[in-house]
């Protein structure tokens, strides 16, 4: 009996030992560390224009700060310009050093440079800012100096980390290549854009997937929920339907193909539109975006521009907003709650814009509206672009003499999504196409060659990088 038990135990251990070998083999992998959190100026060179009194200088973090607080120090040196008498900063500099504090969760910090009142500038004034030191989880990156000039610049070259806001891509970012400047606007901050040109055209905010469908009625008060039966299911980005494609602005930016027809001078001819305001940027990466709700609207002409009448679908009264055309702006923007809002810079102050955008695609049932992240649009006020494949000419060797052979396009989505791939069934990862670059002709006739150098930072989308050079 004793012998049996001993053998039984032996049998058991024999089995167990073999398992444990394999289980042990599987353990002991080293866990990789999080990436360094680097800090950078958004571009190495910027200018403060003659008409501007101050300028906010942004120092971007490569990811949200994951410690309780951190200090960023910026050293400044002026050339032909004196601190205090001719310019100041906020926060103020002590011994030529600005000390900035960032808190946990912050993705950037900034300071403001202000011209002193009544000072005249010659244009040869330059301030150089240097990120001198940091600690507590922040490490200086590649763009640690910024040269700020007091005259308009025509940037010879530049690199930008686009301030898209990270994983939830909350921003639409307008970029002026020649000024090395980017302007980030929350894409939730407007609903409609009113064209300032000769025609009376209205565009939807496609960066939040807005839709507009015409009714036959021309009186806002007569429209009730019964006029919108079935709209929720069909007039949506998630309908994935070809019908819905008729209720969005054409992705090309062609103003003759907008969802809202040209506004007539005769008020009785202007029909009521039902608006799906789309979806706001998600509160956190991987969360659902909230619905922005629905409106009914009617737009009429005025002597100086437009009159917008708007209300909730089942409301019996409506609000009005006057929108005057502004010569310097391509579009004047309005928000149903906030009224008139600033969105895009003056039409000659931006060339391309990075944004989420309602494009079109075909999944086998025809063209349907489909939302694309990482779309690059171009200003329809005179900017033209062309794509060059490196098979034809390399980025480095491309010169102004090569421009003539290109066919430039005015379609706002020419660059669109062609610069990157989002990964897919073949197992590929989201990436920029390194086999192509773009030539951008700005509204002033300058030509830049531009390439996308990164789609992601540390694996996160929403902060792509570009590099560009002036062709002369």
């Amino acid at each position, binding site marked *: 009996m004793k012998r049996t038990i001993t053998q039984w135990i032996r*049998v*058991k251990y*024999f*089995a167990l030992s*073999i*398992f444990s070998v*394999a289980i042990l083999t*599987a353990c002991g992998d080293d*866990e*990789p560390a*999080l*990436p*360094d959190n680097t800090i950078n100026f958004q571009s190495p060179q910027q200018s403060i224009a003659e008409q501007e009194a101050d300028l906010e200088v942004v120092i971007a973090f490569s990811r949200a700060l994951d410690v309780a607080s951190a200090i960023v120090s910026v050293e400044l040196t002026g050339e032909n310009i004196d601190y205090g008498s001719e310019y100041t900063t906020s926060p103020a500099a002590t011994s030529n050093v600005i000390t900035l504090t960032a808190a946990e969760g912050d993705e950037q910090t900034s300071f403001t440079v202000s011209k002193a009142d009544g000072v005249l500038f010659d244009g040869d004034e330059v301030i150089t800012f240097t990120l001198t030191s940091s600690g507590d989880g922040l490490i200086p990156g590649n763009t640690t100096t910024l040269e700020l000039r007091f005259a308009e610049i025509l940037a010879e070259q530049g690199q930008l980390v686009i301030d898209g806001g990270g*994983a939830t*891509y909350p921003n639409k970012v307008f970029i002026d290549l020649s000024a090395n400047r980017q302007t980030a606007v929350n894409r939730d901050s407007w609903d409609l854009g009113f064209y300032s040109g000769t025609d009376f055209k209205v565009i939807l905010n496609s960066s939040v997937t807005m839709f507009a469908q015409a009714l036959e009625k021309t009186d806002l008060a007569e429209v009730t929920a019964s006029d919108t039966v079935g709209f*929720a*299911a*069909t007039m*949506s*980005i*998630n*309908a*994935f339907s*070809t019908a819905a494609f008729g209720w969005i602005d054409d992705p090309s930016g062609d103003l003759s193909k907008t969802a809202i027809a040209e506004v007539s001078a005769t008020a009785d001819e202007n029909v009521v539109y039902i608006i799906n305001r789309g*979806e706001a940027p*998600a509160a956190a*990466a*991987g*969360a*659902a*975006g909230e*619905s922005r709700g629905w409106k009914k609207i009617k737009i009429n002409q005025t002597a100086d521009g437009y009159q917008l009448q708007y209300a909730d679908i089942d409301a019996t009264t409506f609000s009005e907003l006057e929108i005057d055309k502004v010569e310097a702006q391509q579009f004047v923007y309005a928000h149903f709650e906030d009224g008139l809002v600033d969105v895009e810079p003056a039409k000659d102050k931006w060339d391309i814009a990075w944004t989420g955008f309602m494009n079109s*695609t*075909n*999944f*086998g*049932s*025809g*063209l349907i509206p*489909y*939302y*694309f*992240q990482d779309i690059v649009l171009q200003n329809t006020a005179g900017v033209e672009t062309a794509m060059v494949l490196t098979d034809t000419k390399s980025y480095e060797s491309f010169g102004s003499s090569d421009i003539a052979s290109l066919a430039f396009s005015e379609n706002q989505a020419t660059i669109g999504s062609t610069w990157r791939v989002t*990964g*897919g069934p*073949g*197992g*590929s*990862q*989201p*990436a920029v196409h*390194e086999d192509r670059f773009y030539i951008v002709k700005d509204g002033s006739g300058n030509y830049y060659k531009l390439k996308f*150098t990164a*789609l*992601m930072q*540390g*694996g*996160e*989308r929403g902060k792509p*990088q570009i590099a560009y050079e002036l062709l002369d």
Partner: protein
Amino acid sequence: MRIVFLFTCLLVLHSGLVAQDSLKSYVMDDIVITGQFEPQSASRSVYQVRTIAMERIQSQGANRLQDVLQTELNVRFSQDMALGESSMTLQGLGGQNIKVLIDGMPLITREGTSNSGALNQVDVNNIEKIEIVEGPMSVVYGADALAGVINIITKKPENDKLSLDARIQEESAGSEYGLDKGVHNQSVGAGYTLGKVYTQARLSHNQFYGWQGNATGRDKQWHPKNQWLTSGLIGFRNDKSNIFYKLDYLDESIQNPGVFNGGEALDQEYIIKRFNHQLQGQTRLFDKLSYNGAVSLINFSRRTLTTTVNQETGDVRLAIGTGLQDLSSYDGVSLRGTFQYQLSPQWSFQPGYDINLEQGEGGRISADAPWLNDYAFFFSTEYTPTDRISIRPGFRVIQNSVYQAPPAVPSINTKFQLTDNLVLRAAYARGFRAPSLRELYFNFYDASHAIEGNPDLEAELSNSVNGGLNWKLMSTTKSRVEITLNGFYNTVDNMISYGQKPGNSLITTYINIDRFKTKGLTWNTTYTNKALEIKAGISYTGRYNQLIEDDSELPEFTWTPEANLMTTYQLEPAGLTFNLFYKYTGSLPNYEVSTNDAGGEAIRLAKIDGYHMMDFTARQQFFGYLNATLGVRNLLNVTNVNNTSTDTGGTHSTGGARPIGYGRSYFLGLNFNLNK
């Protein structure tokens, strides 16, 4: 029904039904257990059961079940290159409709309970045989047994006091082979029996270094995969009862290396760990009443680990993007039992219970996902009025805590021995597929999608008719010729598809909306003599064209032909065997809506081209305990097949070439087997 297969093993050993010589087992009738009351010969079963024996797995030099199953008719695999996984269709129905069982108990994979994704996560070295039953088996096996059941029967210790086996296989991936290229597999196993106690253990390692193919730089078209599989078993048996506990452990890592872009590469690794505990027992309570019971406990976790690699410095860091780090886990508990009662030679009854509890948690599974508790009772009767007729009606009643399961599922299987050599089988059954955890509780949001699971989903329901004729054209002691003709027709209602969430059009969810049908015919011929075995078959499978609902002039079905040929020739005195495995998988047509140049829409016929897969192996036995197998896999050098679908609209594109294999590969396998 889960019958204790150990009984089979014992039966096999004691009765000497199957001799040691593997070839002769082909001549003998296979013993099958899937869906049976008691283990019995395949020809007596009311189901048409296909059996793939261990010998076949070994002679094909298979590294994974897919290598074997893709030679079978009505079976089609497709690869998900991004995840390095594959999925299978049976009778034209997708992998979620196929129940994959290990020793009669369900498995858990990434999608939740049992689907074809689990097939390549099973140790081929530990398989005694595979039984495939086509057609709904939902009465006996419950949810997802709609297209059929694949029951993997694992090896159990035989009555040898001590058995040892070891296997090494070296294989190229296409033309790639080396220390860090190709396939390197090893396995070692041992069994020991002492009186009534038996025990067994195994350790296997499968290392596939991937295949570059069309990919560039660091990327690989076929992703590297490394598997460690262990299992241990301890059991007790006497004249009346048999009970054992078994633990299978899987540690799998699939690597998805990225290419350098913008100075960094994004590498992904999918790490799966699965513990599968099983306790199974069988006892004869009285002369005419026996009981089989089993409990299984599965813990499955899948980690997605994403890192960035700096191109200049080689520095590896955790990536921080959305969804790039994830740990999802699933727990499953199954309890199953059946009673077999033989009232008389004419009447047998089998009542049974089947309880399945599962839960998932992790990144994309909504936080409030509850346990999915499924309680079922089933009852089958086998009525055999004469030797020549068997009629087996059955039903299952189901109560599920979350989704609306069909309240009762019926089936009737019949078998008629028309003449001594001609058997007719006919069956009608309802089947159902449960909504998966993903469909119920997964939430996913990104730029283009807001997808939420729908906890209100109901099961997909099918009606199925199956029938077949089996004709023993010639059966002598020296040779045998057999012809089988089978047909099937499945209609699936309530099929789960994407739709808008009621009340919130911004969200896509899953709804019970579509319908689908498949039908087909299969013809098989087997010729066997002392030295030669030839199995040849053709099949023709029709898949429902859903666009007929838009355009009634279109054909209702699109058809795909298949053919296969398996030949074994044995040079008796030399101990040398040659094997040829061939399958033609015909083109898969599909109607789709495309946009023409003018922006208009038109329905067009796209198709994925057909392809031929052929393996050839030669196997030599030495000293009775060593086998060497030399083989060529994918002899016709298939890599990708053309696909004319125009659906190339991005991530979800079904267009573009379909990856099938990684080209002609060569392998050498050594099997050592000692019984003492």
